[in-house]
Each structure stands twice: as structure tokens, then as C-alpha cells.
């Protein structure tokens, strides 16, 4: 049998197709001394099928904390003893955050709420917020508001939401160890409705939550089956008071292998650095990931934790000769 990277080169680089689950497992089992070769292939695949541009996004928490769900990685669940308190952001602050995000060159601004799904109060706040942003800022608005009904999907599409985030979070086989208050199938269903309504689908997950290497490959394969426009890849940042609060930080070589494997699973997707990269990879690893399959970043801070300084990330992109994707090209 030929070497996995030789086969991966043919499948992903030459043909633009994703690797299978079994092949992804092989990739994730590559020894540390082959990681540079793996990253080089993933970067070549990204450059050939996506180009050198990087999509930059900012995110904001519209409603923080007090969530009824029990996602074991999340400090915003009301079921844990996390110190995160419930807070709502008003519309003027939301617009200010969108303006600050746009000033970085970002083309995406994602409004996030810690909820099972939106109620009428939240939908009303989102409606007012999107209208105010659209009047003041030239930026695409995305939302992440949990599980949706068909009516809510249609409402968000009518408001002009062009991309909706709803992560699978974990592989189907590991999901019950991560969330017990709703099912993997419910999440999958919302993703399907979003795409059917014409919004772009943003769907990714977290790694480093105690899953096996095979379950990491399974998540990548299941995301590839879903075929989202964008895949945000988060690395667990163990939060105090959560069930995963005492897990170790993911090994950086494992994190880089995972980035490359996700790129080889989905050669044409927008693969975004999301939460936890500062802790897992640091400055040098951030650079390695951008040269290993990543072609999008969340700039600045996250929902409850802080990110790298936005100016440092933008300087890194300049250094790597990776231009920021312009707004017109995202529409």
C-alpha cells in the first residue's frame, strides 16, 4: 500500500476531493517527524483550491451566560459553577463592536447568544441589531443563536443574515459525552434548515475534549458530509467550573495534525481558526496553522475569553503575504 501522504496528495491536491474517514485516521496517526510534510500538503491544497486570501471575522456575545444547555466545555451554561454572569449587550454597543471589527478589515461579524434557541425577545434584539449594523457598517452579518425553528430560519434569512453558525461540536459517537440536553440529530437538523433557506452554513466543532483520535477523524468526516461553507475549528480552553475544566490543554503537534486533517477532509471549505489557539498553539503555532490549511481567522477577542491582539494577527497575515479577503468577494 502506498504512503498515506502520497495518496492524500492525489486525492486532495490533484482531484480536489476529501479524504475518507479511514484515511483521516491514518493522517492523524502520522508521527511527529512527518507533521511538517503533512502541513506542507495541507497548505498546498488550501492554496490550490481556496487561494492565498484569508477571511477575517469578529464575534460578539449578544447574550452571555445563563444558558440552559449543558455543553461540558462551555462556561456560559447555567448548570455549572462557572463565574460567568448573565449579561445582555444593547444595540449601540453592538454597532460599536461591528464598527471596530470592520476597521480591522474583517468582512464578517457574528452575533452570538448563549441559548438553546432564540425566543421572541432575542429575535427582536437581533432584528434591531442587524438593522442598525446594516445602516452603519459595511460588513456581512452572521448569527449563532442555537437551534432554530423553520420560522426562525426564514426570519433570519429575511433579515439579511448571510451565514449562520451552528457547530456539530463533536463526533456523533462522542456527542453524548459532551452534551446531554439536546441531541446531535437536533443540531444536524438546524444545519440542514439553514442551508435550505439559502444562508451560508458555518459548522465546526471543538477538539481536545478527551475524544479519541478516531473520533477526531469522525468529526472531520461528518463535517465533510454536511459540506458547510465554513468550518470553525476550536481547541478546548478548559474553563473553571465546567465538567471539562480540568482537562489538559491539547498538545500542539496534535492540534496541527488536526488542522491539516480537516483541510484534507474538506479541500475547498473556509477553515477558520476559532477559540483556544492562543493557549494550544501560541504565536509560533498560529503561524504554522496558517501554513497548514487554515484560511480564516477570528480576529481579536472571543465570547468570554481574550484572543491575540488583532494587530498582531493582521501583521502576521501581511508577513505571510496572505491578503485579507475583501467584502465584495464574500458576497
Amino acid at each position: 500500500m502506498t504512503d498515506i501522504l502520497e495518496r492524500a496528495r492525489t486525492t486532495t491536491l490533484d482531484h480536489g476531493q476529501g479524504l475518507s474517514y479511514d484515511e483521516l485516521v491514518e493522517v492523524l496517526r502520522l508521527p511527529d517527524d512527518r507533521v511538517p510534510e503533512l502541513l506542507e500538503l495541507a497548505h498546498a491544497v488550501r492554496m490550490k483550491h481556496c487561494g492565498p486570501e484569508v477571511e477575517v471575522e469578529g464575534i460578539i456575545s449578544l447574550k452571555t451566560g445563563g444558558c440552559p444547555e449543558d455543553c461540558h466545555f462551555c462556561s456560559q451554561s447555567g448548570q455549572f459553577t462557572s463565574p460567568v454572569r448573565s449579561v445582555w449587550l444593547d444595540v449601540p454597543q453592538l454597532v460599536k463592536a461591528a464598527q471596530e471589527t470592520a476597521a480591522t478589515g474583517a468582512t464578517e461579524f457574528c452575533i452570538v447568544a448563549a441559548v438553546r434557541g432564540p425566543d421572541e425577545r432575542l429575535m427582536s434584539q437581533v432584528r434591531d441589531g442587524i438593522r442598525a449594523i446594516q445602516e452603519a457598517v459595511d460588513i456581512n452579518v452572521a448569527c449563532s443563536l442555537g437551534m432554530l425553528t423553520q420560522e426562525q430560519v426564514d426570519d433570519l434569512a429575511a433579515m439579511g443574515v448571510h451565514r449562520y453558525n451552528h457547530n456539530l461540536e463533536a463526533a456523533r459517537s462522542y456527542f453524548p459525552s459532551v452534551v446531554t440536553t439536546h441531541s446531535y440529530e437536533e443540531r444536524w437538523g438546524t444545519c440542514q434548515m439553514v442551508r435550505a433557506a439559502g444562508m451560508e452554513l458555518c459548522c465546526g466543532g471543538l477538539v481536545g475534549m478527551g475524544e479519541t483520535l478516531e473520533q477526531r477523524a469522525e468529526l472531520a468526516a461528518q463535517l465533510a458530509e454536511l459540506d458547510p461553507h465554513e468550518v470553525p475549528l476550536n481547541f478546548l480552553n478548559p474553563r473553571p467550573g465546567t465538567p471539562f475544566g480540568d482537562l489538559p490543554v491539547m498538545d500542539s503537534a496534535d492540534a496541527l495534525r488536526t488542522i491539516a486533517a480537516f483541510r484534507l477532509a474538506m479541500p475547498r471549505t473556509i477553515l477558520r481558526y476559532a477559540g483556544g489557539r492562543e493557549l494550544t498553539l501560541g504565536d509560533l503555532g498560529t503561524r504554522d496553522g496558517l501554513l497548514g490549511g487554515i484560511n480564516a481567522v477570528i480576529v481579536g477577542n472571543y465570547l468570554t475569553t481574550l484572543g491575540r491582539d488583532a494587530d498582531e494577527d493582521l501583521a502576521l497575515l501581511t508577513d505571510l503575504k496572505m491578503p485579507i479577503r475583501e467584502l465584495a468577494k464574500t458576497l
Partner: protein
Amino acid sequence: MDTFCGRCGEPLGDSPHAACDAQLALEPPRFCTACRRRMKVQVTPRGWSAECVEHGTLTG
């Protein structure tokens, strides 16, 4: 002078909170260092604010 750790909320006393101090480079404080109340924290793409009902608002 701070009485409580802004990250874990425990009394500072004489014991070091080096791990908490390191983490506070990556997250805003959650507890008021004067009274230990949990603060209302809002993180934005380029900053954060943390409000204690008794001791006011910190920003970063």
C-alpha cells in the same frame, strides 16, 4: 490593595496566584478584587468591561 483574586475569587492572602495571573492575560477578571462579587463582564472584539455593582467598572 487587592483582597481577592480577580480570576478565582479566592482571598489573596500570602499565597501566590501565579497561574491565575497568567490566565488573566487570556481572560478578563470575573471577581471584584475588593469585595469578591462576581462581576458583569462583556467581552468585545477589541476590549472588555467588568462591572462590580459596588466598586465600579474596569475596562481592558
